[in-house]
C-alpha cells in the first residue's frame, strides 16, 4: 500500500507540522507518488504559473521525518526547526565512489504513525520515513517512569518491528519545567542518563538534549546547533543506508532482465522512484542519470531487437501507433503517460515522450536548455529510426505530425525559459529543430495535397482527417494559448493558404537562423527546398531566386552533381517563365553536362536547336555565352609567324571542343577582329615575338566546368618580379622584394568572381557584339561532339595589327558569343617597299673580267607591270655586257618558282634599260647580268690624274681590302626604278687580280725596264701579248727580251717581263711607259682575253756617274791578305753633260765660278768583311761636266780570307743649306736631315776635314730654332736608281789568308 501525498501549495502549513489528517492520505491503490518541485527559483515555472493555472500535482516534497512523543513540545519547536534545518549544508558522502556532495537538508515532519512504516518488500521510497524522532520534555523521574518510558518502549518496538534503526530521542529542557517541578527535581542528567541507559545501550548519540530552546541565549543556541547537526547527520546516514539498500535492490532487479517475465515497465517504475528521491533532494544531476540509464537501457533493447534478440516485454511497444500528439513538456510529470507505462500499455512514442519530458524538466532545472534542444533532435531522429527498426505500423504522415508537434513543443518550452537575447544568441541550438519542423511540415503538406496547384483531392482530405484524428484533443494546458503547436498543425492542415503561411514562416525562420550563424550552405538548402515548394505551387519566379542562390554556392565550390540538379530545376523555372535567353543558356549548360544521361543532354540540346530553327521573328536573336556550347581550345596560324605581307594568305585554324551531345550545324562561325593601324611597322617580322613554345599556336586554358575547377585550385600562375627600393640620395639599397604582378587575378575572390562563374554563368553574359569590323568567317560548319578544327582565312588587306576579339557561332536565331578571346591573339600584316639588291653570283668579283651579278627584286607592295623597266646609268668603268639570253625567275613569298621569262635589255649610250616581266606583289624577281669592271691602269696617282675629265661622275676608288691581298674597287650603279622617283644607288666591290711592279735596271749606260705582274687572285690566268710602249718619245725603242707569247700565271705567282731601252740621240730623263697584256682565266678561249694595262713613269733615267772601285793589294803583295791594310780606290766619273734641269735643280745657287756639284761618298761594309780604316766617307766637289773624275783613296782591311765582295760605296747628292731655300719644306726632307746629322757625327769622329764647313750649321740646327730647320738644313739626297752606275758592284777580290794565320775558322751554318 502506498500513499499519495497530495498537498497543494495552499494547504502547505507553515505554522505547524503537517498532520497526517492533512496529508490527505487517500489510499489510492497503486497510485504513484507525484513529485514535483515548485520552487520559484526558476523563472520558467513562474512564467508558466502565471500563464496557466497552478497544476494540482504541484507540491513540494521533502524527506519524511516522523515525530513521536510529546506533540506539544514538537509543535512549539517546529517553526524554528523547519527553518534552521536547511540552513547549513551538509556533506553527503556517497557510496560506489560517487563524489561527495554538499546538500541542504529539509524535512517534512509528520506525526508518527505505525502505518507510515514501510512494509516488507515495499519499494516506495518517497513515502519512506527516513528518521524517527521522539520528543519529550520530561524532567520528572516519576513521570518518566510512569508513562514516558512506556511510550518510548512502544515506539521503539514498532520501529524495531519494521527494521528501522534511524531514530533519535530529543529531550527538551527548560528552566520553567525545572521550576515547576522543583520537588521532584533530579539532577538534570539523570533523566537523560536514564533514557540513554534504557534505550541507547551503545548509541549514546541517539539521545540529544535541547536546552531552553525558546530562549535566546548562547546555551540555547549551542544546544540547537548540536541538535541540528545531529539531525542532519542522522538523516544523511539514513539516506545513505536506505538509498543504498534501494539501489542494491534495483540492481538486482536489473540483473534479472534476461529472465523471462522481466518487465521493463516495472523496472522503469523502480528506477524512477530513485530519480524522484534524488529530485526531492534536489540532486537533479543524479535524477537525470537515472532517466538516462533508463533511456540507454531501452535503446539497447530496441537495438537488440533489431539484431534479432527480441525481449517479450517489447511487444507492447511494437503495437501500432494510434496517437501522435507530440511531446508534452509543460507538465513536470505527464501522469497519463506514466500510468500507461505503469500499466504496460504505453506505446514507444509514449515511453519516449514521457522519458524525454522528464529529462527536459531536469535539464531545465539544471539550467541547460540548449541540451534540451540537442537531445530533442536526437530523440526525434531516434524515434523515427526505432519505429522503423521495430517495424511498428504507423499511419503515413503520423510521424511527421509527431515530429512537427514535438519540435514546436520543445521550441516553445525553450522560448518559455529564455529571454529573446539568449534565444538569438543560441539559435545554433534551435535551428536544427526549426529546419526539421519545416521539413516535416513540407512533407505533410505534400502528403495531404496542400502543395499542389489544384488543391487537395478527396483522398488527400481523407488522409488529413486520419492524421488529425491521431492528434486527439488538445491538451488542457494549451487549450487557451493561441499559438500552441497543436493549433498550428491543425490550422496548417486545414487549408492551402494556412499551410503556405505556416510553411513559409517556418522556412524563413530557419533560413534566417542559418544565415545568422553563418551556415550559409544549410540556409541555401532550405532555400532550395522552398524553391521546390514554389515550383509545385506554380510560382517559378520565386523559386528561381532561391535556386540561383544555391547554384552559385555549388558552382563556386565545384559540386558538380548538385550543380547539375539545381540547374535542371532552374531550367524548368525558366521554361515556365518563358525567359528564352536564360532558358537557352541553361539548356546549353545542361546539354554539355556529363552528369546527365545522354537522353537528357540530347533533350536540352534539341531545345536549343528547335528554338534556333523556329521561323519566328528574325530580329529576335538570342545571344548566349560561347563557353557553354563549345570551348576554344587552340588556335593555330599558318604561317606560324602570324605575320604576312598585305594581301597574302593567312590561315587561322581554330580548335573548338564542342560540348553538345550531338553534332550541331552552324550557319556561320565568325571571329571579329580589331584592326590597329600600322602598329607593327611596315616590315614587322621581328615584332612577332611568340611567347608560346609552339610557334603560331595559342593554347587556351579551359576552366573545365565538368571536372573539379582547376582555376580555383591552382589559380593563375603567379607572375613574380623583383623590386628594389633604392634611396634617392645615394642609390643604396633600402629594400628588395618580390612583387606579384597579377594580384588582381590571383587574389580575386573565389566565390563571386571566379573565372568559373563566367563559364558557368547562370544568366547569359551581357555580350556587346562589336559589329562592323572585319571578320573571320566560315559558313555552314557542322560541329561534331568533341574537338573540331575550323580553318579561317584571315583578312590581310591593310597593313597593321589585327587582334581577334570575339568569336560568334550562329545557329539559326541563336548566337553563341565568346566575348573575349584570352590570351589575346594577334597577327600582323605588313607592307613592304620594293627592294632591289645586286650581289655577285660568285665571290669575289674580279675586275677586268666579265662577271655575273645577280639582281634581286623584292616587289613588296608594288606590282610590276608590263613595260616597267630598270634604267641603269652606264659607266665607263663598269659596262654592262650584252648577253644573248637573260632569264628572270619569279618566285612567290614561299620561295617557290612561279615563272620564268626572258628579259630584254636595251642599251643606249648612257642608259641600259632592262624590261621587267610583270610580277605580282611580294614576289621575288631574280636575274643575272654580266658586267665588266675595267681595271684602272697604273698606280693610284696616275688614275686620279687620268680621270680628271671634268665630268661629275663617281670615280671608282680602289683600296686594299683587309681580307684579301687583292686591291678592291667599289663600283656604284645608279638605277632608276619604276616605283620610285629617286635613283637607287647600289655598290659592287670588284677585286683586281694583279699587282704590278716595275723597275729600271741599268748596265753602265744601257737601260732595261722590268715589269713584274703578280697574280694575287685564286684563279690561274693565261697572260699573252705582253707589251711595253713609251708614249712620248717616238725615237725610243723598247726591245722586248721576252721570249714567250703566252704565259701561264698561276695563282699567287708572278711573271717578270724585261725590255731594253734603246735610244738614238739622247736618253730622255723621263719615260712614260704603258705595260699592256691580254689575260684570261686559264684554259679559256682566245676570245675571252681581256686587256690589262699598267701605266708608269720613270724619271731620271740617265746614268750621271759611274763609280769604279779598285782594291789595291798592299805594297809588295800580289793579293790582298786578311788583316793587312789595302787600299780602296774609288773613282767617280761624270758621264754626261749637265742637262738643263739638272743644273737648275742641283746647283743653281752654287754656280759661283765653276759649275760644281757636291757629292758625298760613303764606304760601308754591311757584312763585316771589311774594316774601313780612317775616314769612310767624304765630300767631293765634282765639276758638272762630262768626263770629270774624282778619285778617293780609302784604306780598308779585309777581315777574312777568300773572295770577298767589295765594300759598298754609296754616292749621294749633298745639298748645302743655302740651296735649301728654294726647296720646299716637305716632311720628307726632314727625315733626310736626321739621317744627315747622324752621318755628320760619324764624320766628326773620324776627323773629317772636308765637312768642317757644314758642321757649324749642323750644330746650329741642332740647337737652333726648329722653324729654321727647313731653310738652313743641308741635306743629302739619294740619286734615283740608274743615275749612278757602280761598276764594281758585286765585284769580288781574292784575299789570301795572313801568313801567320794558322787558325782556320770554319763556320758551318
Amino acid at each position, binding site marked *: 500500500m502506498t500513499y499519495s501525498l497530495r498537498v497543494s501549495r495552499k494547504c502547505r502549513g507553515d505554522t505547524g507540522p503537517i498532520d497526517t489528517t492533512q496529508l490527505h492520505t487517500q489510499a489510492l491503490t497503486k497510485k504513484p507518488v507525484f513529485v514535483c518541485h515548485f520552487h520559484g527559483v526558476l523563472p520558467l515555472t513562474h512564467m508558466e504559473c502565471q500563464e496557466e493555472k497552478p497544476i494540482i500535482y504541484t507540491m513540494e516534497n521533502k524527506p519524511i521525518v516522523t515525530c513521536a512523543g510529546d506533540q506539544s513540545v514538537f509543535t512549539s519547536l517546529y517553526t524554528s526547526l523547519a527553518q534552521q534545518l536547511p540552513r547549513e549544508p551538509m556533506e553527503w558522502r556517497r557510496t560506489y565512489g560517487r563524489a561527495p556532495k554538499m546538500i541542504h537538508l529539509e524535512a517534512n515532519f509528520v506525526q508518527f504513525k505505525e502505518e507510515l512504516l514501510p512494509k516488507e518488500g515495499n519499494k516506495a521510497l518517497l513515502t519512506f520515513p527516513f528518521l524517527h524522532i521522539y520528543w519529550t520534555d520530561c524532567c520528572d523521574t516519576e513521570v518518566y517512569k510512569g508513562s514516558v518510558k512506556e511510550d518510548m518502549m512502544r515506539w521503539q518496538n514498532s520501529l524495531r518491528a519494521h527494521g528501522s534503526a534511524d531514530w533519535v530521542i530529543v529531550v527538551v529542557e527548560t528552566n520553567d519545567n525545572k521550576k515547576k517541578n522543583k520537588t521532584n527535581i533530579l539532577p538534570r542528567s539523570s533523566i537523560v542518563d536514564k533514557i540513554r541507559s534504557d534505550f541507547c545501550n551503545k548509541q549514546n548519540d541517539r539521545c540529544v538534549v535541547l536546552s531552553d530552546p525558546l530562549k535566546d541565549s548562547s546555551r540555547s543556541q549551542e544546544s540547537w546547533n548540536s541538535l541540528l547537526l545531529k539531525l542532519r547527520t542522522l538523516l544523511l546516514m539514513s539516506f545513505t543506508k536506505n538509498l543504498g539498500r534501494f539501489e542494491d535492490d534495483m540492481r538486482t532487479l536489473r540483473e534479472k532482465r534476461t529472465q523471462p517475465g522481466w518487465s521493463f515497465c516495472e523496472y522503469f517504475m523502480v528506477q524512477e522512484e530513485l530519480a524522484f528521491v534524488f529530485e526531492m533532494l534536489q540532486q537533479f544531476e543524479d535524477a537525470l542519470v537515472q532517466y538516462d540509464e533508463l533511456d540507454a537501457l531501452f535503446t539497447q533493447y530496441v537495438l537488440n531487437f533489431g539484431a534479432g534478440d527480441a525481449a517479450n516485454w517489447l511487444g507492447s511497444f511494437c503495437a501500432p501507433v494510434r496517437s501522435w500528439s507530440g511531446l508534452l513538456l509543460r507538465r513536470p510529470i505527464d501522469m497519463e503517460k506514466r500510468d500507461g507505462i505503469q500499466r504496460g500499455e504505453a506505446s514507444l512514442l509514449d515511453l519516449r515522450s514521457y522519458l524525454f519530458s522528464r529529462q527536459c524538466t531536469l535539464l531545465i532545472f539544471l539550467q541547460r536548455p540548449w541540451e534540451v534542444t540537442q537531445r530533442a533532435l536526437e530523440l526525434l531522429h531516434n524515434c523515427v529510426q526505432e519505429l522503423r527498426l521495430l517495424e511498428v505500423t504507423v499511419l503515413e504522415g503520423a510521424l511527421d505530425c509527431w515530429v512537427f508537434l514535438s519540435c514546436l513543443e520543445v521550441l516553445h518550452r525553450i522560448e518559455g525559459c529564455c529571454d529573446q537575447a539568449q534565444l538569438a544568441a543560441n539559435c*545554433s541550438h534551435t535551428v536544427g529543430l526549426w529546419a526539421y519542423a519545416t521539413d516535416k511540415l513540407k512533407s505533410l503538406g505534400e502528403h495531404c495535397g496542400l502543395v499542389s496547384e489544384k488543391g487537395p483531392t478527396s483522398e488527400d482530405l481523407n488522409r488529413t482527417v486520419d492524421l488529425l484524428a491521431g492528434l486527439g484533443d488538445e491538451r488542457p494546458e494549451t487549450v487557451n494559448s493561441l499559438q500552441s503547436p497543436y493549433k498550428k498543425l491543425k490550422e496548417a492542415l486545414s487549408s492551402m493558404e494556412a499551410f503556405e503561411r505556416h510553411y513559409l514562416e517556418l522556412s524563413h525562420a530557419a533560413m534566417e537562423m542559418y544565415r545568422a550563424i553563418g*551556415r550559409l550552405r544549410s540556409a541555401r538548402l532550405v532555400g532550395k527546398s522552398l524553391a521546390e515548394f514554389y515550383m509545385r505551387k506554380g510560382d517559378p519566379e520565386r523559386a528561381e531566386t532561391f535556386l540561383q542562390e544555391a547554384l552559385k554556392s555549388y558552382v563556386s565550390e565545384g*559540386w558538380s552533381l548538385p550543380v547539375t540538379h539545381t540547374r535542371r530545376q532552374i531550367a524548368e523555372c525558366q521554361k515556365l517563365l518563358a525567359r528564352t535567353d536564360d532558358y537557352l543558356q541553361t539548356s546549353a549548360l545542361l546539354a554539355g553536362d556529363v552528369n546527365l544521361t545522354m537522353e537528357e543532354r540530347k533533350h536540352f540540346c534539341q531545345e536549343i536547336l528547335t528554338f534556333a530553327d523556329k521561323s519566328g521573328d528574325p530580329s529576335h536573336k538570342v545571344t548566349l555565352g560561347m563557353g557553354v556550347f563549345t570551348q576554344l581550345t587552340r588556335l593555330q596560324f599558318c604561317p606560324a609567324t602570324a605575320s604576312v605581307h598585305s594581301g597574302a594568305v593567312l590561315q587561322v585554324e581554330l580548335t573548338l571542343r564542342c560540348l553538345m551531345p550531338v553534332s550541331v550545324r552552324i550557319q556561320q562561325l565568325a571571329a571579329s577582329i580589331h584592326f590597329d593601324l600600322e602598329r607593327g611597322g611596315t616590315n614587322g617580322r621581328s615584332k612577332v615575338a611568340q611567347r608560346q613554345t609552339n610557334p603560331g599556336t595559342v593554347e587556351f586554358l579551359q576552366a573545365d566546368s565538368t571536372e573539379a575547377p582547376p582555376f580555383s585550385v591552382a589559380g593563375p600562375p603567379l607572375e613574380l618580379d623583383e623590386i628594389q627600393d633604392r634611396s634617392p640620395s645615394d642609390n643604396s639599397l633600402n629594400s628588395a622584394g618580390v612583387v606579384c604582378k597579377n594580384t588582381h587575378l590571383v587574389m580575386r575572390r573565389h566565390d563571386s568572381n571566379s573565372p568559373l562563374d563566367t563559364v558557368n554563368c547562370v544568366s547569359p553574359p551581357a555580350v556587346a557584339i562589336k559589329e562592323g569590323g572585319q571578320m573571320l568567317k566560315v559558313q555552314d560548319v557542322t560541329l561534331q561532339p568533341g574537338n573540331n578544327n575550323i580553318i579561317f582565312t584571315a583578312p590581310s588587306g591593310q597593313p597593321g595589327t589585327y587582334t581577334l576579339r570575339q568569336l560568334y557561332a550562329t545557329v539559326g536565331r541563336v548566337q553563341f558569343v565568346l566575348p573575349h578571346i584570352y590570351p589575346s591573339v594577334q597577327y600582323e600584316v605588313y607592307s613592304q617597299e620594293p627592294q632591289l639588291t645586286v650581289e655577285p653570283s660568285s665571290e669575289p668579283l674580279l675586275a677586268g673580267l666579265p662577271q655575273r651579278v645577280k639582281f634581286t627584286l623584292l616587289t613588296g607592295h608594288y606590282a610590276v607591270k608590263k613595260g616597267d623597266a630598270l634604267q641603269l646609268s652606264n659607266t665607263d668603268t663598269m659596262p654592262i655586257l650584252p648577253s644573248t639570253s637573260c632569264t628572270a625567275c619569279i618566285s612567290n613569298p614561299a620561295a617557290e618558282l612561279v615563272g620564268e621569262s626572258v628579259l630584254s635589255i636595251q642599251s643606249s649610250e648612257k642608259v641600259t634599260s632592262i624590261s621587267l616581266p610583270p610580277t605580282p606583289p611580294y614576289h621575288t624577281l631574280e636575274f643575272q647580268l654580266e658586267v665588266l669592271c675595267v681595271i684602272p691602269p697604273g698606280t693610284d696617282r696616275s688614275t686620279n690624274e687620268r680621270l680628271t675629265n671634268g665630268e661629275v661622275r663617281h670615280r671608282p676608288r680602289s683600296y686594299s681590302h683587309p681580307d684579301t691581298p687583292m686591291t678592291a674597287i667599289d663600283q656604284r650603279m645608279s638605277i632608276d626604278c619604276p616605283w620610285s622617283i629617286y635613283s637607287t644607288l647600289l655598290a659592287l666591290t670588284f677585286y683586281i687580280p694583279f699587282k704590278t711592279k716595275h723597275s729600271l735596271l741599268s748596265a753602265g749606260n744601257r737601260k732595261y725596264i722590268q715589269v713584274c705582274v703578280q697574280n694575287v687572285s685564286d684563279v690561274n690566268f693565261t697572260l699573252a701579248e705582253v707589251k711595253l710602249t713609251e708614249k712620248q718619245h717616238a725615237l725610243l725603242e723598247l726591245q722586248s727580251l721576252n721570249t714567250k707569247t703566252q704565259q701561264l700565271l698561276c695563282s699567287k705567282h708572278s711573271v717578270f717581263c724585261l725590255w731594253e731601252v734603246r735610244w738614238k740621240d739622247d736618253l730622255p730623263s723621263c719615260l712614260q711607259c704603258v705595260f699592256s697584256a691580254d689575260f684570261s682565266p686559264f684554259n679559256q678561249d682566245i676570245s675571252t682575253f681581256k686587256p690589262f694595262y699598267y701605266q708608269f713613269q720613270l724619271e731620271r733615267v740617265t746614268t750621271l756617274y759611274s763609280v769604279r772601285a779598285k782594291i789595291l793589294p798592299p805594297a809588295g803583295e800580289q793579293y790582298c791578305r786578311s788583316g793587312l791594310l789595302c787600299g780602296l780606290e774609288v773613282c767617280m766619273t761624270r758621264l754626261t753633260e749637265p742637262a738643263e734641269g739638272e743644273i737648275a735643280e742641283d746647283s743653281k745657287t752654287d754656280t759661283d765660278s765653276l759649275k760644281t756639284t757636291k757629292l758625298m761618298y760613303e764606304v760601308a761594309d754591311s757584312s763585316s768583311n771589311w774594316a774601313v780604316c780612317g775616314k769612310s766617307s767624304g765630300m767631293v766637289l765634282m765639276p758638272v761636266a762630262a768626263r770629270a773624275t774624282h778619285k778617293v783613296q780609302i784604306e780598308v782591311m779585309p777581315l777574312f780570307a777568300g773572295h770577298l765582295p767589295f765594300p759598298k760605296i754609296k754616292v749621294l747628292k749633298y745639298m748645302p743649306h743655302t740651296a735649301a731655300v728654294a726647296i720646299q719644306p716637305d716632311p720628307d726632307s726632314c727625315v733626310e736631315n736626321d739621317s744627315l746629322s747622324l752621318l755628320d757625327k760619324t764624320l766628326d769622329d773620324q776627323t773629317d776635314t772636308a765637312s768642317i764647313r757644314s758642321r757649324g750649321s749642323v750644330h746650329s740646327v741642332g740647337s737652333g730654332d726648329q722653324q729654321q730647320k727647313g731653310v738652313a738644313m743641308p741635306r743629302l739626297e739619294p740619286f734615283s736608281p740608274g743615275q749612278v752606275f757602280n761598276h764594281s758592284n758585286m765585284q769580288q777580290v781574292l784575299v789570301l789568308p795572313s801568313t801567320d794565320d794558322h787558325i782556320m775558322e770554319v763556320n758551318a751554318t
Partner: protein
Amino acid sequence: MNYTSRANNYPLYIRSVPTQNELKFHYTVHTSLDVVEEKISAVGKSLGDQRELYLGLLYPTEDYKVYGYVTNSKVKFVIVVDSSNTSLRDNEIRSMFRKLHNSFTDVMCNPFHNPGDQIQSKAFDGIVSGMMVQTG
C-alpha cells in the same frame, strides 16, 4: 556513404554506396561543411595547435549520421553513415578517418598527383571500398 573534401570545399573524392541516392548524399555532405567550418573556427579559438582532427558527429539527420574530420592542412573528410547502422561506434568511425587520412597522405605523396585534382588512385579507392564493405 563516404566523402573527402579539401580546404576550399571543392570535392576531391566522393564515393557513395548505394549510388541511387547519390545526389542526396552530395547535398548532405555539402551542407555538413557548414558545421565543419563552424567546428574548426570554434576549436581554433580555444585550443592552439594541439587540435583533435576528429570532429565527431557533425549533426544527425533522420536518415544519416554525418561525421567529420579535418587535417591540419584543412582537408576535410566526411563520412555519412545510415542512421540505422548501429554497429558503428565512435571509435570505429575515428579509425576509419585515420585510415582515410593515411591513404590520402599517400595519394598526396605521389609525385604525379597534382594537388587539387580529383583523386584518382586505385589504392585510395581500395581503402574506401574496403571500409564500405566493412560497414555494410
